[in-house]
């Protein structure tokens, strides 16, 4: 074969290479791009927090998505009072009860009894009960001074305590608890803010979406609430969100 023919074959290979390289890189880029978009669409948008959904929704008023800064909670006045850490709503009541009775029987051996009346959401944990009894044991040699437990306004106490807890933990759960507490107190603006905060920390928290929408609905901004829930439902297919939309539409909320 003549050297030019060999050269021509080399040239064909070269041209093929020159075509394949950009073509291959385009295919890879397109594949990566579409894959990335798919993942973005499936996961990121699906789980994006309320604030982003709000900013993406034209109807949303920008003033509504501002996070209202919660005034710094002043630490409670230092006293000898025993502060009870609030209990998370879900507790094993039977276990707690049995522990409570066990401690109660121990306490009954002492001459001084402490009666703690708490609401369901302020049950003492076993740990706290143990700490109380240990305090008592430490002070048993001294003349006993009755320690006063402030429960005059349990709900305020609860909120303050959770707020304080949130200051330390910055957990979505605490923020959600606060949102719930405010919602129960009909303080919907506060509830909305705390739901938003919970959602910002953990946008997968379904309750934060629901509570946020419910608060909005309660404040009369039903269309906004529906929009938010609709967005959330589009991505999550949450039956709760759907039911809530129905409730808002029918005026139940």
């Amino acid at each position, binding site marked *: 074969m003549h050297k*030019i023919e060999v*050269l021509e074959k080399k040239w064909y290979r070269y041209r093929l290479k020159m075509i394949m390289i950009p073509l291959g890189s385009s295919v890879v880029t397109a594949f990566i791009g579409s894959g990335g978009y798919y993942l973005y669409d499936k996961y990121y948008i699906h789980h994006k927090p309320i604030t982003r959904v709000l900013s993406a929704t034209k109807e949303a008023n920008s003033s509504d998505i501002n996070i209202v800064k919660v005034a710094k909670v002043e630490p409670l006045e230092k006293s000898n009072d025993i502060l009870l850490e609030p209990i998370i709503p879900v507790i094993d009541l039977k276990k707690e009860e049995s522990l409570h009775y066990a401690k109660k029987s121990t306490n009954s051996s002492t001459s001084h009894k402490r009666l703690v009346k708490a609401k369901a959401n302020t049950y003492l944990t076993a740990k706290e009960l143990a700490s109380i009894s240990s305090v008592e044991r430490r002070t048993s040699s001294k003349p006993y001074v009755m320690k006063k437990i402030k429960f005059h306004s349990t709900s305020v106490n609860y909120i303050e305590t959770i707020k304080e807890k949130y200051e330390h933990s910055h957990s979505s759960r605490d923020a959600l608890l606060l949102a719930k507490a405010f919602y129960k107190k009909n303080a919907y603006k506060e509830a909305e803010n705390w739901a938003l905060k919970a959602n910002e920390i953990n946008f997968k928290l379904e309750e934060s979406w629901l509570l946020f929408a419910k608060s909005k609905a309660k404040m009369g901004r039903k269309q906004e609430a529906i929009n938010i829930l609709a967005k959330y439902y589009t991505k999550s297919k949450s039956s709760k969100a759907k039911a809530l939309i129905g409730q808002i539409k029918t005026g139940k909320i």
Partner: protein
Amino acid sequence: MKSKFEELKTIFIDSVDKNNYVELEAGTYNYNILETSLLKPLKMILLYGKPGTGKSMLLNKLYHNLKEHREIHYFDAPILSEKAFLKEIYESMSGQSIPDNMRVNFDGLLKYCQSLRDKREIVFLLDECQLYSEALMEKIRLLSDTRVVKFVITLHKTEDEDIIAKEHFKTRIWEVIVMKNVTEYDLQLYLQKKLIKKGFIEVSNMIRKKDIKYIHFMTNGNFRETNKYLYTIFDIYEYYEKNSPQKISYKKLSKKILEMAAIRLGYIDA
């Protein structure tokens, strides 16, 4: 049947021939500096640049332009033996032939040069001086110190030779002319002039601006590389003209052939 490309490719065979010299802006500028420098009382002039930048061609042109007007001698190939070099210098200056069994004594040559002071001024053009030994270069310097002999030397610019140029000549050379690769514009002029000069006007018209750009990209505007590249291009054309004429066009340069030539010369890794 004889292919026209067969003749065409020969004009790109690399040779230092005054007839192949193509006037370019940069070349003309350097030539004028060189000619002016020869009028000054300088002892040594250095033409300095990478291989293929046209140093030898410039020296050759200078020789042919001045040989009728002044005493000028051109050593196009380096004379590596000191004995032969001194003999050649003496013979050139004196016009006498030295028998093979005799040699030129350097001291005697120096005295001979000194005896010619204010009487004659002789120019020696030495090409490829990077091949001369340091000892011989020292003798060249001493000869130039007599102010009777002027040397125009060319030196390749490589890393090692850069040191030679700097260290060896920095105190001895009064004029340095740096030769560089040409721009796209100059390359276009070079090819056009070269082709038109030899009567290949239609081939000159085949070369478009983008072809020049591609050729410049491949050769970096180096004359030697350009000649080599064009020779290869027309060699391929010649083959196609003889064997598969349907594969070539006479209206424009084929990109395929440009690339094939680049592959053959190793400019492109295929």
